[in-house]
């Protein structure tokens, strides 16, 4: 990231830190806000967060890395989450997961080399009666079979 982009990013983080500074237990809401705005929580923001909330950097880093939802690196253009919990397994999610790795060209917790896709496992989207479930961006899909997943990924290529 070059310096012209870095500047407004730091300003944004400062602004968000100030918004949450007086809130009890502010760290998670603040991290959510940062990730919602930037797509991830840059390592460079840890110091500002720690100072603003009167925490140690270790505490902030510990929270960011503890929770699966928080990312420390930018995601691909499309984030594809495949549910791997029991109800989805019972209807073929493991085969779906293997297909997703093949179609997207990356493993779980990784981003494809072309920066297009990030594949993430998810443990339950609450669609267990219409499994297997997949979430692409913020759109949910249920009863996803191999053909449907292939079609959904194809449709992402066209909005590249």
């Amino acid at each position, binding site marked *: 990231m070059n310096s012209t982009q870095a500047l407004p990013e730091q300003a944004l983080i400062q602004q968000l830190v100030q918004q949450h500074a007086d809130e009890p237990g502010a760290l998670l809401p603040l991290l959510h806000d940062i990730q919602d705005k930037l797509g991830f929580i840059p390592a460079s923001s840890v110091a500002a967060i720690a100072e603003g909330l009167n925490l140690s950097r270790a505490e902030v880093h510990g929270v960011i890395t503890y929770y699966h939802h928080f990312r420390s690196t930018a995601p691909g253009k499309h984030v594809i989450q495949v549910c791997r919990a029991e109800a989805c397994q019972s209807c073929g999610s493991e085969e779906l997961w293997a297909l997703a790795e093949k179609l997207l060209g990356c493993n779980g917790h990784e981003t494809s080399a072309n920066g297009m896709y990030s594949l993430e496992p998810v443990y339950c989207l609450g669609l267990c*009666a*219409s499994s297997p479930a997949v979430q692409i961006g913020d759109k949910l899909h249920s009863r996803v079979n191999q053909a449907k997943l292939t079609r959904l990924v194809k449709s992402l290529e066209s909005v590249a």
Partner: protein
Amino acid sequence: MSFTVFVPCDSAALAAGADEVVDAIHKEAAARGLAIDVQRNSSRGMFWLEPLVEVVTPQGRIGYGPVAFEDVPSLFSADFLNGGQHPLSLGITDQIPYLAKQQRLTFARMGITRPLSLDDYAAHGGWVGLKNTVAMDGSAVVQEVLDSGLRGRGGAAFPAGIKWRTVRGTTAAQKYVVCNADEGDSGTFSDRMTMEGDPYMLIEGMAIAGLAVGATKGYIYIRSEYPHGIATMQTAIAMAESAGYLGANVLGSGKAFHLIVRKAAGSYVCGEETAMLESIEGKRGIVRAKPPLPALEGLFGQPTVINNVITLASVPIIMAKGAAFYKDFGVGRSTGTLPFQIAGNILQGGLVERAFGLTLRELLIDFGGGSRSGRPIKAVQVGGPLGAYVPESQWDVPLDYEAYAAMGAVVGHGGIVVHDDSANMAKLARYAMEFCAIESCGKCTPCRIGSTRGMETIDRIGTSKNKEQQVHLLRDLCNTMLHGSLCAMGGMTPYPVLSALNHYPADFGLETKEAQVL
């Protein structure tokens, strides 16, 4: 004349294409010059029929489903707006046996009302419990909840009234009510449906709890995987506040109750109550040792009522109709109803609210219609990822907390995941250990290390020459996890593992005798 059409906005309907169906209905109506009022309701909980489109007729609401957007023109051609016959016709929705056979107390409004409509909520019995509460002394409210026999619906089944009484009995500058909406168990969605579909019911339950115990502040801790639930709850809280059901002066009682939504961040163990408190306080979700009990030293060190969504959502009807009414449902010490959730490889998956005491067989066969794949059902996991696998020989045991505990299983949050005969139970047992290793908070050794050793041992059962020795090790390890873990994460992971080993030894490559060593 104008026609009213209902299309659900529940996540499960959206995931099946409900928004596309709504667009198609508007488009087709415009093309035909018809005036149509499309309303978004909650889901009836019959997910194999979603999107379930309903039309208001003089006979009642008539259903069609599952509707794909391609079906919409033919529905118009079949005059569905007047209840016309179509291959997707389901008749009068209320008379569909799946619904007609239920006892919907908590889910009485589900699928009928529009989630954010204050008018709908009030017209269908809403706020009666809160109004009664405002007119009562807090101790009488606590007594009513105690008398109802309501037990925690999140899984632990601890009597709600006892927690409330403990918190009410404390003196503190600030007390809290925390709703655990971190519904991470695979096979469960009743909390999600409640938050997306009937948010005021949860708000009312929390306000009643707040008034009863003297708490002025409440938090709802909702998992980040439920963005629709979070959005609906936030809007509902704002609307309830401006209508006077929340805020500085709840229904003119002079008492305050404020609600805040907290978004979780994808940690399963944060569904454990003390890990959840840590998370709300902005820390890593590490389990706390008990005592102190959260009722005495909970959120920010203050006395805190912690209940699951369905526990709190059950309170309004108890306060509206009385403890005796609620207690009439159920068996033994399992009083009231439970919204069971039938999921996984099942033909008719969905939500079935019934009094405790029905059997798994009724749920799987009468309601569920057997497996979705058409193959025989092999194993059924009841109570989430930490619940036991129940073989067919136990399907006739009544679903109540005590009967299930007696056979080494749990009812838990009422989630039921069905596997057909293609499932490999050794693989699922290994997965249970793997999931525990991924999600363990790391505080106690049996869970943090035992889960990884468990995976390895299950692998070795498959490859080792001395299988009996490995089975012995696995059972010994499970024993340590059961008795030595700090919370249910490590303490209950042995349930699925041991039940798989006990009931399906062949999947581990074992003779029955070999599986029983120890």
